[in-house]
């Protein structure tokens, strides 16, 4: 089995996001970037499948500028075998990402595609789903457990009512929840080894797909500041305030 993992470079989850002064987007200059956290779960799962002897080859793909190589190096250091950077000058919408991935999948012929459940920067939560439709493969999203027997996948998803169990066949597109596993640390010797693993670069213009944005961002604003709270003396006052001042009940 061959496993392909899609990874995205995003602003690190610990960074305090700041809107650019001209409101055109979020400040990314000199800001720490990292692998999108649920993508790390996808990487970990792929590496585990390889360690269990279920996968023969693992491959990580990202789309971005030259700097996006660093998330591929991280993937390789965590144990992925090889990687591809699809070089794109602009950041893409989920549809364009899915189209790009489908082109790579056409070439690479993986049996299983793993993605993070969503990217923490735009929270679109669409790429995996669109990709499965483009490929006409089965999909399972937000998976929290995965077992593979032969051609069959046994999956769990955490939903409001409990745990949903699913079964499907390869090939398939799966998006990974943070519950799926605990991503390993890239050890120092493995970071060294990752420098020598293959990282191929493909220019997006050579894939022959339309990546033009379909959505225009008008402006980006910070959420309004929370007003200071007040102390109420009793339930009666609380109800009155909620009813007449806040007008929420």
């Amino acid at each position, binding site marked *: 089995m061959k496993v392909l993992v899609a990874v995205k470079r995003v602003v690190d989850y610990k960074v305090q996001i700041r809107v650019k002064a001209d409101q055109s987007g979020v400040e990314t200059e000199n800001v720490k970037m990292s692998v999108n956290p649920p993508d790390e779960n996808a990487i970990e799962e792929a590496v585990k499948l390889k360690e269990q002897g279920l996968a023969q080859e693992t491959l990580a793909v990202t789309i971005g500028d030259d700097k996006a190589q660093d998330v591929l190096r991280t993937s390789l250091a965590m144990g992925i075998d090889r990687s591809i950077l699809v070089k794109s000058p602009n950041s893409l919408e989920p549809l364009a990402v899915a189209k790009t991935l489908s082109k790579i999948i056409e070439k690479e012929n993986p049996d299983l595609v793993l993605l993070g459940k969503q990217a923490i920067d735009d929270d679109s939560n669409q790429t995996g789903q669109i990709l499965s439709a483009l490929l006409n493969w089965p999909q399972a999203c937000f998976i929290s457990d995965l077992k593979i027997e032969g051609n069959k996948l046994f999956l769990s998803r955490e939903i409001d009512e409990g745990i949903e169990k699913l079964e499907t066949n390869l090939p398939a597109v799966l998006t990974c929840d943070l519950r799926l596993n605990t991503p390993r640390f890239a050890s120092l010797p493995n970071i*060294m080894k990752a420098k020598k693993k293959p990282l191929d670069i493909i220019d997006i213009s050579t894939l022959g797909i339309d990546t033009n944005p379909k959505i225009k961002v008008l402006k980006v604003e910070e959420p309004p500041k929370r007003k200071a709270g007040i102390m109420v003396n009793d339930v009666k006052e609380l109800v009155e305030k909620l009813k007449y001042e806040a007008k929420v009940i």
Partner: protein
Amino acid sequence: MSDIQREEMLYDVVIVGAGPAGLSAAIKLKQINSDISICLLEKAAEVGAHILSGNVFETKALDELIPNWKDLNAPVKTKVTSEDFLYLNKEKSFKVPNFLLPKSLQNHGNYIISLSNLCKWLGEFAENLGVEIFPGFAASKLLYNEKGEVSGVQTGDMGLDINGNPKDNFEPGINIKGKVTVLSEGCRGHLGKEVIKKFNLDANNKSPQQYGIGFKEIWEIDPEKHNLGKILHSVGWPLENDTYGGSFCYHAENNQIYLGYVIGLDYKNPYLSPYDEFQQFKTHPEIKKLLTNGKRISYGARALIEGGLQSLPQMHMPGALLIGCDAGTLNMPKIKGSHTAMKSGIIAGEVINKHLSQNEHLSIYEDEFKNSWIYDELHQARNVKPSFQWGLIPAMVFTGIDQKIFGGKLPFTLQHKHADHDSLVSAKDSKKIDYPKYDGEFTFDKPSSVYLSGTNHAENQPCHLLLKDKDLTTNYTLEEYDEPAQRYCPAGVYEIETDSETQKKFLKINSQNCIHCKTCDIKEPSQNIDWITPEGGGGPIYSGT
């Protein structure tokens, strides 16, 4: 965890800390001989993310190291265009005429920079030369060979739980060995502290080491009030005259100002809160008018090493060098340590090359250092800080005479009297200080400040603030000094709480908030706190600081 198998990696040179000192040493070495293999460890998640500094930058060392830095688009762009030095009282400010200022306080030809950004740039430069940089890896222990020489470092274990047991993702630290180890951890490095003690490096020091705590906030201000290249320093209010300290305010790119405050950690009153002094400073009319309609976008704090030449330890030892602020090369009257840290790194690069290629002894470092401009600079500056033991006004008069008339060449050297942890007066003999409430506009509480620093430590890991005596707060420090850690820690890590059952007060340590400033390790009156490296990658994520 002594029984685990650790992998080993071998290098010619192992460098701890990617600040200006460590990066300069790495770059210099590679420039001289690109075959020398170098491993550079940095505890921050990326290079620059633990660097917090003013910063008005003298390019002297950078000119020597990378003469064409301008063509290479180094993030050193904003020339100082004008400068003011103010004395503040509560309502007013008095400008000290520039012609009265000693040369060391004049900044013509210097640049306003983000040292964090410069380190990031130097890091990329070093990587292109073949230096192997590993951000997110803390050097947690020193390794010694059978002769007792430093032989490298061990990186911290990753994935231990709060009791030190391995979690699912446990990854043991590895041993990184080098023919030479360079310690460049910045002010109060925990490995630096170990070697100073082990090899008695401060045996010939005339004075105990001195420290300060420095705060910095970045504000985006009204473009109308912004004056690119302007710098402003002040002394006086809100500090009492017997406390050493002052402010800086630098107008940087993108309508930002770098606003900060430095306070000597030799302060005496245990009720003093450096954080609150800084917050209060921002409410001075002169500063408030600048900040009105502005927005605070960053906060951080870091200790500075201020002892100067009198307190500078020997910088070489068997197998290793101690450089930059880890040793104490900062020029205090200038509050500048970046260029001297870089120069100490450049010298280290040259010395290590001679050591590796011609078998020269590492002790030649001391002579090379003495023959360089850093020594002259630190010699000239040596009397300024100790004169502040006499209080602000006499010190300023003395400094004027010393620096302006004698150019720092007076035929005597003043000494620092106490180590900073010895300077506190008992709480019962000290005046309580009532700091004003935070207004949420100019002044803020610690949690919202720490929030801006992006600080994070992986949950469920061993506490990295070790207490030699767990009960010392309850049994002694609370009564004697009203536990000053509550106030000197700029991140609110130490809190006094009451046990609901026994009604006894105890010290709570919120180590996940620690911004790695090292103040507690310095100021704790009984030296009861040992700061050690937490899991790599933890701590603040500063950018632009």
